[in-house]
């Protein structure tokens, strides 16, 4: 039998309070998604109507073009992931394995500095750039803009993973005369696949969630991603709350699941890679 110590009870209480604080808004999304229209005014029950779980999917027939929004978000997210990883796998490896070359410090600083740049500041120059490149009102423009912010994070994650692979592993292959690029592709990359997967998740959801570029660079509503589409519900009182929050849930749940799967590697990459250059 475990004794109930003071510290034990204290910790248990802290965990309960924190879990309620963190979980409540997510729970409230679900709870509201399961309500019927008139509950809003009589007061929503704290307990969800689980019998209505099946109704969650009615959101797809509700007239809200959710599938199209999600489709656009998916295109943006896949594109952002593709470009970010293609650049970041190479750059992460290069920064990890080559410690002395002209411009290394500058590249490392630029990668870190993107974390300080307000997107709002870059919108106007990017707007001008996109107009001249003919990228306005298209998903490709969003992919390119998102990649500029997502790729550096992916570089850190991959760099810090490569840092963790002993160089001797590569030297063995080197002695056998394998060219550098082949060693990179066939020896090192497979060893850091989990971190590449983590970087893929974080870049995917950067594209999936992005709102500011989407709302400035996209004019036509049929090209809206879900972030922009969902934002049109703010301050709008016509769409039933159950529809709004069913749509939010459909948008949120994949992000939560994937983040939970890979968060450890994201964390170590962000903290170790970002500052130690």
């Amino acid at each position, binding site marked *: 039998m475990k004794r109930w110590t003071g510290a034990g009870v204290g*910790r*248990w209480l*802290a*965990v309960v309070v*924190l*879990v309620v604080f*963190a*979980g409540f*808004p*997510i729970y409230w*999304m679900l709870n*509201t998604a399961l309500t019927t229209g008139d509950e809003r005014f009589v*007061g929503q029950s704290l307990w969800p109507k689980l019998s209505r779980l099946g109704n969650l999917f009615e959101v797809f027939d509700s007239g809200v073009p959710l599938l199209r929004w999600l489709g656009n978000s998916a295109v943006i997210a896949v594109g952002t992931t593709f470009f970010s990883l293609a*650049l*970041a796998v*190479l*750059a992460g*490896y*290069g*920064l990890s*394995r*080559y410690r002395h*070359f002209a411009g290394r410090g500058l*590249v490392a600083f*630029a*990668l870190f500095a*993107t*974390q*300080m*740049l*307000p*997107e*709002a*500041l*870059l919108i*106007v*120059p990017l707007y001008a750039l996109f107009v001249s490149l003919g990228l306005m009102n298209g998903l490709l423009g969003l992919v*390119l803009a998102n*990649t*500029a912010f997502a790729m550096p994070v992916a*570089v850190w994650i991959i760099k810090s993973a490569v840092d963790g692979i002993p160089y001797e592993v590569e030297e063995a292959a080197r002695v056998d005369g394998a060219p550098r690029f082949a060693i990179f592709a066939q020896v090192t990359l497979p060893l850091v696949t989990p971190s590449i997967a983590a970087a893929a998740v974080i870049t995917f959801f950067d594209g999936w*969630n992005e*709102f*500011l570029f989407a709302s400035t660079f996209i004019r036509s509503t049929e090209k809206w991603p879900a972030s922009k589409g*969902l*934002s049109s519900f*703010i301050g709008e009182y016509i769409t039933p709350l159950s529809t709004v*929050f069913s749509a*939010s849930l459909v*948008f*949120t749940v994949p*992000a*939560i699941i994937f983040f*939970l799967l890979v*968060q450890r590697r994201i*964390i*170590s990459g*962000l*903290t170790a890679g*970002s500052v130690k250059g």
Partner: protein
Amino acid sequence: MSTMVKVRRRIPPYLFVGAAAVYLAIFTATPLLRGVWLSFTDTKLLNPDGGTFVGADNYRNLLTEDRFLSSVVTTLLYTTLTVVGALVLGTAAAFAINERFRGRAVARAVLTMPWAAPSIAVVLVYTWIFNVEDGVANRSLAALGIGQQGWLLDPDRGLLAVTLVSVWKVFPFIMLVVLAALQSVPSELRESGRIDGAARLTIVREIVLPHIAPTLRVAALLMTIWSIRRFEIIFLLTGGGPVDSTNTLVINVYREAFQNSELGRAAAIGMLGLCLSLVVTVVYFVVDGRSARKEAS
């Protein structure tokens, strides 16, 4: 060694890093430089190429305007509150779930969720929670006999509400960072402290905290520069209102550019915001270098 061989040896790093560097040059550095230029012009949104050079006028004007200065104060206040809130809550959460207990995996998953949830969904649900008439926040307060609060509508509450949502959203990051650091504290260190009969708190203060301090500093830096530039949550919750009470620099950039059409002024505000982040980063590296030396000696 022939020059040819030397050159061939120097090329490989650029093959790996070059593409990313060029990408950043095109999509980050060039727009940024253009932003610097814009900040010295009187460019308008409707005629983005028609601005004329006005020297430091934008900066001079901004630095004498109360509205701008209060925006700086709002940014500092928002950033400080969010960073401190997230550090305290995140560290507390990490300590709370560091040791094994039944349900720990579930607790950890739930505590991570806010960080993973898309901002727009977060804003939708908090707008509903904070709804003045029917939101669960005011309904619960009413049950306790406390009158209606105008969370997102009351200038005295706006910053508080926005900070609360921000802390909720980002504290899991600190939690996960601290948790990872805690699990790397060598257990012999703790054991030796325990054998010496040290009290729990002493062990934490003397052994655990110094061990996680470097990680905590990095996390605090990231958290600070992310807070200075945070846009979506604030913009979608309040749009900078009520009565400018949440008008941070980044929100100000957006409003100046897209509501007032003043691209030049907007760029100048953005640059000053960026300077703020740079100052924080430099201070961090100075402090970090000093503490690292202290810890080493």
